[in-house]
């Protein structure tokens, strides 16, 4: 353990647990806005409620005057909830203005969070947003008309990519863009996706694919390293012998690729290796899987290109 928390984080947590005056633990009865994020199974959950001073004629001029939270989670999850409520109350925001509070603001308020704990601040921002949507519904405010990006129930709808934390493709895609996430580690730190079993990291349609599709990385990589034409007259002297290359390919398949496929009940067989083309046959569950061809390209070819030779290509054999 021994996370490196800032003094601010520690102090907010301690004050909250001791229920000191000025802290925000609790739940507002009949709130003007309520938002929840997370679940107990995932290890943290937050229920955020707020009350506004209602403007007699224009709901857009409502001002948030009180904010409360109930949080299941670790030191930083509780401190982030405390920070969120404190910021909201201090700012005398209208709900629409409060939408501008992002997770980075919570991190700043806490004088920083360990990277593995960034998701605690994201949880706060998500719950706030949900609560404001709830307020809009109650007050008959049309957020779309105001140009607020209403998210189409994305967490409930769509293919689940990270099964451990139940996070869907549209949600992860939005977060990749919104938070500028460029690596799997960054995704995990921010929204926890991929942080447990790690199965969704490199599977087809997994986190790496979503990253590549967002930032176009794989395309760039291919453009940067076009297949160099073989020199006329065959391979130069310095090339490793076909025997060495074949052994290396076998090793990469055995060590990097096969265990991953076997994990999903599949397997892979090298049929032949000839002129930089590796002929492979998928077996087991992978053979009947619709994504088999894609898996082949993505997983096998990437591994072989990275670890053996950039020029290698993979062709599926059935």
């Amino acid at each position: 353990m021994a996370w490196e928390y800032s003094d601010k984080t520690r102090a907010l947590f301690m004050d909250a647990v001791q229920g000191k005056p000025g802290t925000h633990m609790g739940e507002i009865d009949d709130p003007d806005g309520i938002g929840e994020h997370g679940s107990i199974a995932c290890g943290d959950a937050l229920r955020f409620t707020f009350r506004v001073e209602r403007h007699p004629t224009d709901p857009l001029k409502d001002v948030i005057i009180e904010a409360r939270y109930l949080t299941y989670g670790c030191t930083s999850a509780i401190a982030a909830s405390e920070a969120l409520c404190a910021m909201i109350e201090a700012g005398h925001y209208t709900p629409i203005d409060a939408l501008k509070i992002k997770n980075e603001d919570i991190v700043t308020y806490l004088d920083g969070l360990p990277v593995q704990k960034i998701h605690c601040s994201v949880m706060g921002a998500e719950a706030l947003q949900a609560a404001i949507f709830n307020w809009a519904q109650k007050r008959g405010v049309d957020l779309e008309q105001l140009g607020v990006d209403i998210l189409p129930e994305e967490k409930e709808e769509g293919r689940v990519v990270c099964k451990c934390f139940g996070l869907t493709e549209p949600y992860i895609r939005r977060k990749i863009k919104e938070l500028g996430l460029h690596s799997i580690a960054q995704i995990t730190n921010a929204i926890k996706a991929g942080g447990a079993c790690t199965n969704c990291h490199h599977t087809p349609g997994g986190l790496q694919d979503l990253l590549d599709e967002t930032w176009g990385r794989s395309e760039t990589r291919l453009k940067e390293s076009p297949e160099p034409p073989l020199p006329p007259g065959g391979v130069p002297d310095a090339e490793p012998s076909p025997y060495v290359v074949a052994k290396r390919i076998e090793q990469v398949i055995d060590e990097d690729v096969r265990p991953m496929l076997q994990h999903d009940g599949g397997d892979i067989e090298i049929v032949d290796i000839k002129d930089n083309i590796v002929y492979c046959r998928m077996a087991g569950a992978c053979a009947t899987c619709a994504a088999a061809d894609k898996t082949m390209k993505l997983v096998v070819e990437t591994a072989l290109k990275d670890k053996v030779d950039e020029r290698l290509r993979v062709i599926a054999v059935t």
Partner: protein
Amino acid sequence: MDLIYADNNATTAVAPEVREVMAPYLADDYFNPSSMYEPARRTGHAVEAARATIAGLLGMGEASELIFTGGATESNNAALFGAARANPGRRHVITTAVEHPAVLEVAEEMERQGFAVDFLPVDRRGRLDVKDLIRALRPDTLLVSIMHANNETGVVFPVAELARVVKETDPAILFHTDATQSVGKLPLDLSGEHVHVDLLSFSGHKLHAPKGVGGLFVRQGARWRPFLVGGHQEASRRAGTENVPYIAGLAVAVELALRDREAEAAHLASLRDRLEALLVERIPHVEVNGREAPRLPNTLNVAIHFIEGEGMLYQLDAFGICASSGSACTSGSLEPSHVLRAMQVPFTAVHGSVRFSFSRYNTMAEIERIAEVFPEIVARLRRLSPYWDSERNAPRPEALAMLESAASPAEGGGPSARGNSA
């Protein structure tokens, strides 16, 4: 504020007797035991005397069956990889889902290297089913590695019996046990009850010796190859200049632990049982993990429903109480303890585990203090929890429903034998 150290399964205080024995080797007796001159004989003798002491106390037939290592992690690596090197024809390993990472991750590494590995599940009480072990045995099984006592829950596996079953099935299979948590706490007799154990790992710093020293028992005749090479030390089975002061300290530590083992075990059990009774009495909705299985006398693992472990540790720390947790937030991963998950601890409690582990230096007054402070910490954190109704000091209705669904056996997330079973 006096420190209450209740994390002795993580590490222990170095005993003053151990420090005393080590001191000369950190001062004037610094010689390399392999050197030829007279002063070096003293250091060489110290190592051999330590070996004889520990071998005798653990019932080894020969002192040479004990190899000194840098700790239990090295011993476990050496046991598993060394067994694989010596038996190239065998490609299958059996271990359990609840091993310490020093075995679990070695087994996973072997899996990546092409070995077939079976991870045996445990039941809700933390126990293994010997039928699962028998079913997993194969003609090409190389090694069975089953821990003696679990570091998180203290649950003790019947390794003497399991080793016998394995060796009677096929004497060529090696049986390894990680006894890091049990040496000094449980009876061990490698010539008697544990005669079927081929390889046994242990560590110094769990029994009041310093960190960085441990041992590996390799039964004479067991097919095993060295893991660390590069020198003739330890009869060429573990290269590297002997860590003389630590080895001398280790022997005294084992001696101290075993000299008063029964009295000490009774003391530890009285502390643990008292704390367990008080916490169960004072905290609603608490699970005592491993309660219904044989357990180490010093370990208490509780899981508190509807709050998370890391926050509890921070609060305990503020009261000067050192404990640990299996919650996701205290691990490197985002997953809670693999041991508690394998035991199917309900999801409403699996993030809320706290482990108290005691040593001979703990007192009943400390237990009373923990029992006074901890329930209050739990109550305060529960006031912050969206699942808890503080007014009634009970779960909210929707949380109660969760509790009921969590109590029935989980689907999916439960333990299962992994790997490439035939």
